[in-house]
Structures are given as structure tokens and as C-alpha cells.
């Protein structure tokens, strides 16, 4: 039990109560325990979140007023590229893998992940990749400055920072594939007796589909960047028009990965919210079966809509129409989910603790982001808005207010289970309200900037955009510094605070609440009894 309380205090860890395995730093390097690895994933992702956040503040500082103030255009491009790569691959994805590691074995009554040793490898591949990405700023030519989409011909021309980014993506891809195989196997094979697929917790369902999406699409990205690498160094011409290749081919391959990637980020977020909203509404999740089908439908359709990122590349009218309608089709299962969450709250006995606040923030802001997504799906509109700040506002509403808010909802929801202590509710609520207000101050004006025609990925802009950019920058700095509260909240909960009951939330359901808080180092060594009548379904 000592072990889980010492999360985050690797340096001065005393021997764990089970009396086996190495201690100190070596314990964390060699651990195969899903809870340790989950904690490491979460800490890693939070560190990366701060690094990526600092980069976004460099961007917003530069954009605070027109003209070039603090950084060169080249460095600006590198910052926006690394900000995106680090946030997507270093912060959001590992955060949800961390949740999966911690919670899926507890939710399904399994003693650990299916492949505990591989789990350790999946995690320890991440730091080298993060170091490669971050160190690329300091090599000659600097980091990749192409945007996270790495479009050729620019990505073929950049310096060795680009090669480092490519290798980092290879390593991250391997980590994701191993992690996904592990999670999928755990979910399929290690559920408690009686827990059929249609009775299992929603978070497991979202991860089952996410795991499949990752296994299917990460090799696509790996292949695309490998072709970039051979174009750069080995004389091939996959994407080089002068050698008979086609740069547009890269865009097709990238977005064939890139669009499912959007749902790889969003689906686990849906899963977390599907636990938090019922718990604080004191009702079961409305429409469990339709939720499962919606998740599967979103996962499936995400493979067939990639070219809505490419309306201006000269694809024919028939193609534009097909991709427009197919993209709008995704709004149907997503709408099913949103209405199910709302209906779950209908006539519930609602309370608004921090996890619920973040889940509601998610619900409202993600829906706004989804609506601007439907707007952008329209070809005629998108040709006007392509690469403007409207797009930036859209995907920050679904990525930050969607995935990140949901991750915070999950953090506050399960923190008592992890640490054994209740977090400071006042600070949690403060964190939510600061995040909610500053997020909207930062990103809502970007809709107006985009509609007025301000292009993205450029460090300077015309005078008429100055006021909204100043507002947006103030919001960004406020949002960034508000996140430091998380460190205080988590540190306080680790050190002490009100003792958490095994089930600190009276409306919460699921096997994870049947183990004591903090969760012992080893749980469910024998399969628990699972009562289907008490499941979420």
C-alpha cells in the first residue's frame, strides 16, 4: 500500500510492502505493475503538457501584437510544429493510455495488463522520443518547422531536425502499437466472469475501438514518414514531383492516418465522460447499447473521410461531395452520444463536484467544436476557411476543451482511488472555472479572426486583427498558468487530506470502487464477482 501512496516520489521511496523487486529509481524503470506504469504515463504526459504549453505561450506572446517581436519566423514555425506534435503524441495520447493502464484492469477485475513486461517497454519508449523531439530545437537548422502535418516538399528540404522528428514518430508509433495490443488483449481476455462485452464499462469500450484504430493507423503514419526519410536521404521520389512523385500523395496518406487519429484522441475522452456524468447524475448511462454502436460507427467512418482536410488540393467535384457528405455523417453518431449524455442528466439528482464540472465543460465546449466541424465539412465554406484561425479555433475546442477537459474530469474523479485522499475541492473548482473562462477568452475570438481571414501558421498579421489577438493571448496566458494548480492539487492529495472511502462518489458504479482507496499495489489476483444487474448497461 505504501507503493501507491509514493507515486511521484521515486527518489525517496522506501521498500514496498510486498518486499520484492528493486527499489528506488530502478523500481520505476523495471516495474511491470499496471498502476505504477499508469502513474508514470500520467506524469510523463503532464510534463509534456507543460512543455507543449510553454511553446504555445511563445506563439501567443509573438502574436500579442502585429509585427515581429520576440522570435524569428523560422523559430515560430518550429514552436508551432513541436507544440502540436508534443501535445498530440506526448500529452493527450499518453494521458489516456495512463488512464487505461490504471483503470481498465480495475474496471474489468483483472490482476494486471495482459502483457506486463511489454507494458513497461511501451512506456519507456516515450522518454527517448520526447528527448529526440525536444533536442531537435538545438541542432543546426532547428526543429521541424512544417506544422505537425509534415507536408512535403518543405519536409523534404528541412535540416536534420526533421530526421529527429521522423525517428521520434517511429518510436512513438511503436509505443502506441504495443500499448494498444496490450489494452485490446486485456479487455478481450481478462474480464471478470459474467462481464460480457455488452456489460463492460464504457471506458473499456472506447479503448477497445481506440486500440483497434491505433493498431490499424500508426503503421500508416510510420510508412508515410519512412517514405519522407527515403526521399530525403536515399534518392527516392515518392513525394518529389521532379522525380515523378506527387506531394499530394503524402497528404492522402497522412490524413488517412490523421483523421482516425482525431478519434483516437476523442474516443477515450468520451469514455471518461460516460463514467463521470452518470456518477454525478446518480443515474445509469442512458442508452448504453446505442453508445457502443455510436463508438463503433465513429471508429469505422473515421477511415473514410480523410480528404475533407484536402478540399483545396484540386480533388474533383465528385470527391469533394463524397467527402463532404461522409464527414457530415459522423455528426450522427456523435450527436447520439451528446444527446445520451444530456438525457443521462435529465431528472438526475445532479451535484457539481469538480469532475462533473469538467465533464459539463467538455460537453458544452466539445459540442461547439463539433458544430464548427460540421461548418468546416462543407466544401464551399471550407475553401474559404482553409488554413485560417477558424480551423485553429475548431480543433482547439475539440482537442483542449474536448480531450483535455475530459482528462481533468477523469483525474479528479479517480484521484481519490489513486492517492487514498480527497483532493482539495475548492482548488479543483477554481481550476475548472479559471480553465473554462480563460479557454474561451483564448479561443473564442479565433473564430472571428478566421472568419475575417487571418491565416494560421504565420507569426505576423495585418493591423485589423490586433485586438482579437491581444484578447486571445491574454486568455492563453491565463489558461496556461491556471494549469499549474493541478500540481498543487495532486501534490496535496498525495501528501494527505481527507481519507477517501472505497467508493468516494455515491453515484459511481463499477468494480474499481470495490477495492480500497488507495488501490493496493496488487488487486483482483482472483477474479471478483461481477453482478451484471449492477453494471452500467
Amino acid at each position, binding site marked *: 500500500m505504501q507503493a501507491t501512496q509514493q507515486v511521484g516520489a521515486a527518489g525517496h521511496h522506501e521498500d514496498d510492502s510486498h518486499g520484492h523487486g528493486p527499489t528506488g529509481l530502478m523500481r520505476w524503470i523495471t516495474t511491470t505493475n499496471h498502476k505504477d506504469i499508469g502513474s508514470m504515463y500520467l506524469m510523463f504526459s503532464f510534463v509534456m503538457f507543460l512543455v507543449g504549453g510553454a511553446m504555445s505561450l511563445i506563439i501567443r506572446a509573438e502574436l500579442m501584437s502585429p509585427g515581429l517581436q520576440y522570435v524569428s519566423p523560422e523559430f515560430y514555425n518550429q514552436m508551432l510544429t513541436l507544440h502540436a506534435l508534443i501535445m498530440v503524441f506526448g500529452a493527450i495520447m499518453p494521458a489516456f493510455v495512463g488512464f487505461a493502464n490504471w483503470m481498465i484492469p480495475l474496471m474489468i477485475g483483472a490482476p494486471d495488463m495482459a502483457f506486463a513486461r511489454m507494458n513497461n517497454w511501451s512506456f519507456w519508449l516515450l522518454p527517448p522520443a520526447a528527448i529526440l523531439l525536444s533536442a531537435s530545437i538545438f541542432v543546426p537548422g532547428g526543429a521541424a518547422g512544417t506544422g505537425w502535418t509534415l507536408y512535403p516538399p518543405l519536409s523534404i528540404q528541412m535540416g536534420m531536425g526533421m530526421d529527429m522528428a521522423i525517428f521520434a514518430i517511429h518510436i512513438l508509433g511503436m509505443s502506441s502499437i504495443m500499448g494498444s495490443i496490450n489494452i485490446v488483449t486485456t479487455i478481450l481476455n481478462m474480464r471478470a466472469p459474467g462481464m460480457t462485452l455488452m456489460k463492460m464499462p464504457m471506458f473499456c469500450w472506447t479503448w477497445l475501438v481506440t486500440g483497434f484504430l491505433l*493498431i490499424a493507423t500508426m503503421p500508416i503514419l510510420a510508412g508515410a514518414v519512412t517514405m519522407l526519410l527515403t526521399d530525403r536521404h536515399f534518392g527516392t521520389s515518392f513525394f518529389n514531383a521532379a522525380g515523378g512523385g506527387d506531394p499530394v500523395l503524402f497528404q492522402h496518406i497522412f490524413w488517412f492516418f490523421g483523421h482516425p487519429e482525431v478519434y483516437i484522441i476523442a474516443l477515450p475522452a468520451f469514455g471518461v465522460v460516460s463514467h463521470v456524468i452518470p456518477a454525478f447524475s446518480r443515474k445509469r448511462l442512458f442508452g448504453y447499447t446505442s453508445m457502443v454502436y455510436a463508438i463503433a460507427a465513429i471508429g469505422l467512418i473515421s477511415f473514410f473521410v480523410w480528404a475533407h482536410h484536402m478540399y483545396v488540393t484540386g480533388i474533383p467535384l465528385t470527391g469533394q461531395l463524397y467527402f463532404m457528405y461522409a464527414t457530415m455523417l459522423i455528426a450522427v453518431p456523435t450527436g447520439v452520444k451528446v444527446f445520451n449524455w444530456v438525457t443521462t442528466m435529465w431528472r438526475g439528482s445532479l451535484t457539481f463536484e469538480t469532475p462533473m464540472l469538467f465533464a459539463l465543460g467538455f460537453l458544452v465546449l466539445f459540442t461547439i467544436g463539433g458544430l464548427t466541424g460540421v461548418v468546416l465539412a462543407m466544401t464551399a465554406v471550407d475553401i474559404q476557411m482553409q488554413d485560417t484561425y477558424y480551423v485553429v479555433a475548431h480543433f482547439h475546442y475539440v482537442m483542449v476543451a474536448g480531450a483535455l477537459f475530459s482528462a481533468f474530469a477523469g483525474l479528479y474523479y479517480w484521484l481519490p482511488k489513486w492517492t487514498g485522499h480527497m483532493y482539495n475541492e475548492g482548488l479543483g473548482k477554481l481550476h475548472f472555472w479559471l480553465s473554462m473562462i480563460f479557454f474561451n477568452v483564448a479561443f473564442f475570438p479565433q473564430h472571428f479572426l478566421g472568419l475575417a481571414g487571418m491565416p494560421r501558421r504565420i507569426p505576423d498579421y495585418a493591423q485589423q486583427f490586433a485586438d482579437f489577438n491581444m484578447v486571445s493571448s491574454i486568455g492563453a496566458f491565463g489558461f496556461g498558468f491556471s494549469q499549474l494548480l493541478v500540481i498543487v492539487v495532486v501534490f496535496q492529495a498525495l501528501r494527505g487530506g481527507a481519507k477517501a472511502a472505497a467508493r468516494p462518489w455515491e453515484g459511481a458504479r463499477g468494480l474499481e470502487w470495490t477495492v480500497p482507496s488507495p488501490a493496493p499495489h496488487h488487486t*483482483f489476483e482472483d477474479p471478483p*464477482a461481477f453482478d451484471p444487474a449492477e453494471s452500467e448497461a
Partner: protein
Amino acid sequence: MDGQRLNPDLSPIGVTAAEPLPRSGGNRRVVAVSLAVVVGSLLFVAAQPRLYRSFCEWTGLYDIDRAEQVAASSIPSRPVTLEFDANSHDNGLRFRPETASLAVRTGEIVNVMYRVENTRNTTVIGQAVPSYGPQHAGGYVKKLDCFCFKQQTFAPHEVREMPVVFVLDKKLPDDVNTVTLSYTFFEVPAGSVTSPAAGKRS
């Protein structure tokens, strides 16, 4: 399990279940299927350059301006007489075409040499400027390469042959049957020996 409903709050940890685990296949099988998907995706992306090309050729998307090219190629080629002329502007350059006239067809690549001799004892820098007869035929002379594209430097008494490569556009108006291509070599004044583009930048 329905027979033994338990209070979820009190469901004890470590109760060994009577039922077997609900396995949908052994771990090996899930890993094998997953790795098959990974390999399938890798093969899929490796086949993309070929698939993409075949798809675009099959649908005719590969060449988005093919329709325009087809339209252009439907204009028949016809014979035209080309005449070549050369003048120098009192600068010691002896300048003449190697061919005085040539019968060609429109749409055909024409390659003609001009000969320049520097008769002076000093280096001469010159720029050739074209003119066309009739004047409106100039727009239909599509040059691929020409000595007139840049300034030329001639060492004392140097003799040099220089090419002009062009295509007569098939859209050349029907009333034009003879096109005259004339070049005049002007001397670039000493002291301004940079190219015009470089001069503008400085």
C-alpha cells in the same frame, strides 16, 4: 451469475468464480490478429504510391489539365517558313544566324544556332534583344532556351555559337505563313555589368 446477485458495494475481492473467464480467444490469438493488422497496414501504405498512380490514371485525375492538352492537340500542325535575322549595334560584335531560313511545322521543336565573333581587342558584354515579324507572331514563339535570356560576355576575338530552341504554337493565326525572328545585340555599358535582376535588388 444471475442467481447470486451481490451488492456491488460489498462484492468481496478474491471470490473465485465458478464460471470460466469469458475469453474470446487466447492472448496469442489477439496478438496474432493485431500483428496481422499492423503488417496489413504497412503493406497497404507501401502499396500506396503504385495504387495512387493507377487510381489517378484510371480515373483520369493524374493530369488535371489533360483536357486542355487534348484540345490543343486537336489543332492540326501546318507548315510555316521561318526566317532568321541578326544585327549588331556598332559594338564590334559580328553576329549572324547559321541558317537564313527554314521550313518547319507548328508544334515542332526548332533548334537554330547563331554565331558571334568579337572583333575587338577588349572584352565585350552584350545582351541580345529579339523582335518578330509580323509583330503579333511573337506571342506564338514559345522559347525553351535562348542566348537572349541573359547577358553574354565575349573575350577578345572570341568566336561562339549560341542556340535558340523554341516551338511555334499550333494556335498561330492562319494568315501568318512566314515568321521572322530577328535579334539585335546591344552592348551593355561598362560599369553596369550585373544582370538586370541583380541590379534591381541592390
